């Protein structure tokens, strides 16, 4: 089976108006349908700028960004990109438009001109996927942070985009809120949705298929999370990143010869490796 490229950045550079500096520089990146890609980087590395190229909120000043094969520099391409990729932003509070949960989920499909019956079906499904069915009629201000961010995800997936981009979507959530959102993402990914997680939290990329590291607006590393965690050339620190404590403990145990092998990505696997 050939892999289908869903989003492709071809030598993309971007400069914000009025700024002489490149926010993105010569980005070449392909996102494959169905994969979970993580984009890592410290603050100011260009992650959010990259995220906004996915659905044509920003268009490259140089190079081209093709979403579903369509160039986002054209009007048609922009329209298409909005349907292909949905973005969930950092602050859930600033993405919620309506005062009632289900009405907010319906906002995207309504903008797309979807017929009423189909909107209802999509809203119901999106609420179920995100575990918000019981809160459908509740006012949005009454939700917790985690619930608000799940609502933002529900609003995004109700537009049925093949690709969902999460721009630091967990950074304002408490641990339980993060956990809730991660579970929703795992489920969506297992159902075949293409996910792009943009984050600086290394522990969130444990389950990703592939990750790229951005530094100073350029891609400086690309590969699997496990290889990145090995940090063989000790560059994570330079990029403003650090390996999760769990992996650090594992590395320490391996280095001191207590155990051997690669760092297993999750706690349960690690425990069973240590205490067989």
């Amino acid at each position, binding site marked *: 089976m050939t892999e289908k490229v869903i989003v492709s950045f071809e030598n993309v550079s971007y400069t914000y108006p009025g700024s002489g500096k490149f926010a993105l520089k010569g980005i070449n990146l392909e996102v494959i349908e169905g994969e979970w890609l993580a984009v890592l980087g410290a603050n100011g590395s260009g992650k959010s700028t990259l995220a*906004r190229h996915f*659905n044509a*909120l920003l268009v490259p000043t140089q190079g081209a960004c093709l979403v579903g094969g369509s160039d986002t520099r054209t009007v048609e391409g922009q329209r298409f990109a*909005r*349907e292909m990729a*949905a*973005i969930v*932003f950092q*602050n859930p*509070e*600033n*993405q*919620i*438009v*309506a*005062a*009632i949960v*289900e*009405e907010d989920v*319906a*906002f*995207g*499909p*309504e*903008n*797309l*001109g*979807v*017929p*009423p019956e189909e*909107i*209802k079906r999509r*809203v119901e499904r999106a609420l179920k996927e995100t575990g918000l069915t019981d809160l459908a*009629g509740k*006012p*949005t*201000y009454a939700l917790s942070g985690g619930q608000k961010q799940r609502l933002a995800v529900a*609003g*995004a997936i109700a*537009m049925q985009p093949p690709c969902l981009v999460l721009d630091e979507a967990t950074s304002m959530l408490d641990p339980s809120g993060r956990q809730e959102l991660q579970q929703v993402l795992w489920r969506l990914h297992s159902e075949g949705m293409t996910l792009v997680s943009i984050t600086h939290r290394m522990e969130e990329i444990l389950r990703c298929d592939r990750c790229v590291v951005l530094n100073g607006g350029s891609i400086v590393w690309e590969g699997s999370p496990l290889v990145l965690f090995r940090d063989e050339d000790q560059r994570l620190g330079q990029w403003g990143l650090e390996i999760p404590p769990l992996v650090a403990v594992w590395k320490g145990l391996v280095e001191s010869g207590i155990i051997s092998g690669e760092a297993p990505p999750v706690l349960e696997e690690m425990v069973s490796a240590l205490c067989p």
Partner: protein
Amino acid sequence: MRFLNHLTLGQYVPTGSVVHKTDPRAKILATLSILTGVFLADQWQVFALWAAFLTIVVVMSRLPLSMVLRTARPVIFLVVFTAVIHLLFSQGTPIFRFGILKVTEEGLRMAFKMGSRLFLLVIFAGTLTLTTSPTELADGLEHLLSPLKPLGFPAHEMAMMMTIAIRFIPTLLDETDRIMKAQLARGADLDSGGIIKRLRAFIPVLVPLFVIVFQRAEELAIAMESRNYKGGAGRTRMNPLVWRSRDSVAFLTVLVVTVFLVFLNSRMSLV
């Protein structure tokens, strides 16, 4: 959410009642009709009948009466103030005096009339917002104002602004509360002194609030654009408004009640 405990105006409370299910356009038109009627009323018997009508509507809406009455809380000061001013400063036949102040028969009548009128106006408007979700309200207004679209009136934009404003009221109140607490923690004194001093003390609260509002507005605009919002053209609705016969019945009933009470009021004024 401390402020929210005192704020009911503009908050929808779904009960699934027949009043809730009525088309928002019918409810808006009915409320306008009622407000006109209450404005024209000046006989106490007519006010009593309006209050009785209000009670019927509230019972049909299955909302607790206390909750509906609470919508008047933000304006209770205004109601009392208006009543007292009229009570003490109207010309006419004095009933009794305290020094330079005198209560006249006309003053008493005016105080009752203005107080009841204001109170009923607010409660009827409050009942509309308690039984109609902000989105329905905005949809209703958009539809009612859409005949003005060819004249360049931005009906959709106005409705969207209203939806967002209502959505952000609790958020911004919460934000204000947070900033006030932060300033209090840093030694700001917001509660003492005269009105000028208090207003000046509020500036350190207002400045960050404005900055936050603009930041939020920008982020929200980006999020809306990202969710494919391009204005009203080509939009559909999850719950499109459908005018049913029961909506006509509801509106006509209110219209008949209004006409009857206005007529009754004018007859009684002549006597």
